[in-house]
């Protein structure tokens, strides 16, 4: 700075500037998910940053210890609330691994369908909000429209737009409603149009590119060391996706691509997510085509929610129903870790059972916690304005990070 004015001029000494300490958040418009940044600024350069999380802490793990195994599902909905069904699926898979049951094929397809719809909604929210915070309100509105359409689908399948509570241990609650495939195709057609408009508005936009490119970058090595997963890791060029590394449900039989980036900056993260939307739609179309007929719950009254008919007529089902409701399902003692690919990265559930009707421990590995902890690494020395796109692409979801 000094040489800009005259040789020998020490800007800091002669103007007596000191680093300014400012508080960004917890209710700043850009810190969605409620988080506070404690910034030390030198002019516009970030010297120090402390991220303070925990504003949305609601004792998820303790709450789960007081619920029956099935009663945990509504609470998992509220982890990553932009992609609720994925959390349902993750928890159910972990519990089923502990019991040692596999759900029928149709149910697996249904879980993939619900999960991918949820992933779509998560990505639409994230990308739309990112565009909004860089000033592109119109693009945000287009993706909100796309998200509303996806929510219409989810609503007709799961019964709620946001907190789906769709999956149960040993199955799912509802089969595809009538005409779902046609409705879905209609939605995907419209969403592709909106995707095109969204991409056209942003990807050749100088301002957008300048703010995204080469900001918030992280090297491949650092990303791995900090425990990155999901789109942020793939943007660095590491093709790690749980769906590919350890295929669960029917992902192994489907045909889709894992988008990867190269440089690991915000633009790559953005493009990876944008492409994942297309891939999710591809997965959904295949699933709707191939979904086989059959039962959607395991054939064992101990591990499933019985139908109303069975409660009325089948003695065994009725006894298990009362027992399971009053005492909870007695999942065998043990511990298990199961990871799935959440909208944001590897979403893991670590469950411990003591053989009682309630979990002894239900720990979640939230993908965005690892990403958020690397925030200082990514923005230190950058401009204050770079914090916004970086934080957007980290996609901190308060419900998931703070639990």
């Amino acid at each position, binding site marked *: 700075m000094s040489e800009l004015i005259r040789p020998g001029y020490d800007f800091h000494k002669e103007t007596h500037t000191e680093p300014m300490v400012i508080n960004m958040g917890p209710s700043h418009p850009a810190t969605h998910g409620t988080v506070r940044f404690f910034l030390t600024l030198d002019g516009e350069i970030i010297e120090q940053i402390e991220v303070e999380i925990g504003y949305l802490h609601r004792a998820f793990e303790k709450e789960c210890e007081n*619920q*029956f195994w099935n*009663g945990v599902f*509504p609470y998992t909905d509220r982890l990553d609330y932009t992609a609720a069904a994925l959390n349902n699926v993750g928890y159910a898979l972990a519990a089923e691994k502990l019991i040692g049951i596999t759900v029928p094929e149709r149910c697996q397809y249904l879980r993939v369908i619900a999960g991918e719809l949820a992933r779509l909604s998560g990505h639409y929210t994230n990308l739309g909000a990112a565009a909004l915070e860089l000033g592109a309100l*119109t693009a945000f509105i287009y993706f909100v*429209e796309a998200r*509303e359409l996806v929510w219409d689908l989810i*609503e*007709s*399948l799961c*019964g*709620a737009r946001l*907190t789906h*509570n769709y999956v149960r241990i040993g*199955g799912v*609650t*509802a089969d595809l409603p009538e005409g779902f495939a046609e409705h879905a195709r209609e939605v995907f057609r419209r969403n592709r149009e909106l995707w095109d*408009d969204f991409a*056209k*508005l942003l*990807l*050749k936009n*100088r301002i957008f590119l300048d703010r995204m490119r080469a900001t918030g970058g992280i090297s491949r090595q650092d990303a791995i060391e900090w425990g990155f997963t999901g789109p942020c890791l793939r943007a660095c060029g590491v*093709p790690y*996706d749980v*769906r590919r590394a350890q*295929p669960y449900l029917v*992902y192994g039989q*489907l*045909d*889709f*691509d*894992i*988008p*990867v*980036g190269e*440089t690991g900056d915000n*633009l*790559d993260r953005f493009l990876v997510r944008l*492409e994942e939307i297309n891939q999710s739609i591809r997965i959904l179309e295949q699933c709707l085509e191939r979904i086989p007929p059959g039962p*959607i*719950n395991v*054939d064992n009254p101990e591990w*499933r*929610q*019985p*139908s*109303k*008919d*069975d*409660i*009325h*007529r*089948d003695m065994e*089902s*009725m006894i298990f*129903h*009362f027992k399971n*409701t*009053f005492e909870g399902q007695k999942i065998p003692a043990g511990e298990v870790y199961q990871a799935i690919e959440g909208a944001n990265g590897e979403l893991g559930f670590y469950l411990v059972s003591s053989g009682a009707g309630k979990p002894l421990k239900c720990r979640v590995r939230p993908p965005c916690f690892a990403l958020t902890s690397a925030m200082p690494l990514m923005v230190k020395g950058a401009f204050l304005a770079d914090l916004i796109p970086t934080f957007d692409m980290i996609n901190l979801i308060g419900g998931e990070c703070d639990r």
Partner: protein
Amino acid sequence: MAIGIKKVDSNITLTLWERMYAPEIIRGLYITMRHFTVNLWGLALEALGRRDKRKIMTVYYPEETLTPPPAYRGRPVLVRAENGLEKCVACGLCEVACPPKCIKITGGERENGDRYPLTYELDGGRCIFCGFCEEVCPKDAIVMSAEWRELCEYGRARMVYQKEALLYPQRNLQKRINLIRSRYFGVSRYRGKA
């Protein structure tokens, strides 16, 4: 059948044409104007009374409301059978299954020995619309209605619904009861076929 890897191309370069200010502005305006025209045309259709032909996402609430799909979980309500009595037998399953514990029941007995809920209190301020009560009820006595409008109140105490406020005649809820009965294909049905 394969999970491939696809490289995204972040090397977006702007051509000279794109770097010139005006053409890009026009291209952007074309996109937004297209959406704008569709919406404007929707307004014209509205004036012409052809609301159904509109291609607008939003609705004119409260004159126009959306009908939720059959699977939708609205406010939980109790079923009043054709004979005017509540179907609930105060078994307490819904009370136990409700995750936020918002149901409180005291059971009573009729002269003929049938059990019924003396009081049934559902705290709408705590209810999370999860549908567990409907799922566990062995009598189809509590179901999630399609009611989602105007559930807000000035104050939490006014959201606590007593039994009378919850009771709905069965014929209004028959569709929902049929739907939940068709859920979870029966074990017995499949056991017979296996």
